[in-house]
């Protein structure tokens, strides 16, 4: 089984998407708050928990939402009320909407015609091949799996060979093979000089696809830059564990002496331990327990949700 994505053609020109102090609110609810960033060629991940404002931000980038404040520009021109930007921009939205009554080839061909491409048939064939849908291209999209529909939409978004491609949660509904293929395709497009931005709430997805990441939390840009630096920041944050043992008091005393532990609270239902170094604490805990003859009955990391990780980044 191969998962090699067809190589994307080198971009004839590169584009830059700029956001300057962009905010968007709905009544009293602030969905996006004063976000500034500049996206150039390569793959960038837009990471954040559900409700962080990623989709709102992508819609503003794609010209489907007016910023309440600030400006979104593609190569210096506003994306809002400017259909001409779609000559250089492609969008794969999160919503799974697709013309189920068309075949994938008809759908991509129609998109090529709407772009008024000189050879729409050739462009459609190339785009369908890029997402490996040739085998199913003559079947109605209504009969496709979720992952196949997603690939059909990606093919339509790529048919005019845009310099900028925005994808909202593109890996949703894909099986592992399709996911790997999509990741390779995005890599290939980024390497060929396209500006690719994809959103995700899954850390590992972003890690595998992009070196650069923009992290959004509660509408704000919480972190921005090299993925490894941000990952380190996430790993080295304080961690909270709930522990129940055969002798909570003895274990608390022993743990307080450990350098990796920054705080211990003894409660009715056991211990709450704050650790400054996740790895060191999880290595030392069994040793300490064994040395004191204490049996650990329960060890629960209390704040491992992605939301808490992101919240930490905001405070950091």
């Amino acid at each position, binding site marked *: 089984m191969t998962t090699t994505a067809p190589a994307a053609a080198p971009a004839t020109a590169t584009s830059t998407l700029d956001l300057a102090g962009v905010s968007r609110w709905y009544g009293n609810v602030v969905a996006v708050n004063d976000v500034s960033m500049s996206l150039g060629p390569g793959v960038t991940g837009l990471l954040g928990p559900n409700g962080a404002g990623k989709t*709102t931000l992508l*819609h503003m980038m794609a010209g489907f*939402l007016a910023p309440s404040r600030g400006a979104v520009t593609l190569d210096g021109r506003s994306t809002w*009320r400017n259909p001409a930007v779609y*000559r250089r921009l492609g969008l794969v939205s999160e*919503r799974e909407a697709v*013309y189920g009554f068309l075949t994938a080839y008809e759908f991509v061909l*129609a998109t090529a015609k709407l772009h008024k491409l000189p050879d729409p048939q050739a462009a459609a064939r190339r785009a369908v091949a890029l997402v490996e849908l040739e085998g199913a291209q003559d079947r109605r999209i209504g009969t496709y799996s979720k992952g196949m529909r997603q690939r059909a939409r990606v093919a339509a978004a790529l048919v005019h060979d845009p310099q900028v491609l925005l994808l909202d949660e593109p890996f949703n509904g894909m099986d592992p093979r399709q996911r790997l293929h999509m990741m390779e395709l995005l890599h290939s497009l980024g390497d060929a000089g396209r500006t690719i931005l994809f959103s995700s709430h899954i850390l590992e997805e972003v890690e595998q696809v992009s070196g650069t990441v923009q992290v959004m939390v509660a509408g704000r840009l919480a972190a921005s830059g090299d993925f490894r630096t941000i990952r380190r920041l996430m790993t080295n944050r304080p961690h909270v564990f709930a522990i129940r043992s055969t002798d909570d008091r003895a274990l608390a005393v022993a743990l307080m002496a450990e350098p990796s532990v920054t705080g211990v609270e003894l409660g009715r239902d056991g211990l709450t331990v704050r650790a400054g170094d996740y790895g060191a604490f999880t290595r030392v805990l069994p040793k300490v327990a064994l040395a004191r003859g204490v049996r650990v009955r329960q060890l629960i990391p209390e704040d491992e949700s992605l939301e808490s990780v992101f919240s930490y980044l905001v405070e950091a």
Partner: protein
Amino acid sequence: MSTVAWITARGLFGRRRFLLLLPLPVLLVVLAGLSQGMGVEPSDWGQPVVVGLGLAVVLPVVALIVGTGVLGAEIDDGTVVHVLTTPLPRWQIVLPKLAVAAGVTAATVAAPLFVAGLLADSVRLGLALAVAASAGALAYSALFVAASLLTRRPVLLGLVYVLIWEGLLSNVLAGSRVFSIQHYVIALADRLAPTELLHTTISMPLAAVMTALVSVGFTLLAIDRLRAFSVAGETS
């Protein structure tokens, strides 16, 4: 046929709601045929069947189903984004959709109205009704396509217009007929084939001007709204 019109027509005929178009025109022909076949005088059945059913119900309801289907349904299910993420000027999206809506509505309504007019009076009345209904189809379609961009519930808004404004108010308050497409159609048909079956206080010139104004005005409004189309709702 433009690609937008092709996708619109495929989408329209591919949805089950298209089947809703069939019963009303059939009912119109059946009622007219039955009345004529049973020997009822046209002066007795002509007005309620041709105007009461044909122009007051069949035409606006078919226009509502089709007019909100060509754009409102795509906005509802999100597929409109595929057409909008192309560099097409927005008028090149609205006009083909409007053409499909008006064409399908006219084709669906004109034939049964022709038959009803023929049975009630003459070929001339049949043709007059078909022509006037086609003009009305354009005006209604422009209204309902624009409504799809003005509200998330265009069908509800359309029903309020058809049932409350045209069905109730324009029968009670003569002044409100100035804004009733149904009365424009009656005035146009009456001018083309004068008959006792058609009555309205709207003059033919006013009807012609208002039909054109409504058609052009709501088309321009739809184009402007589509230029500023926002994807709503999601904040994730």
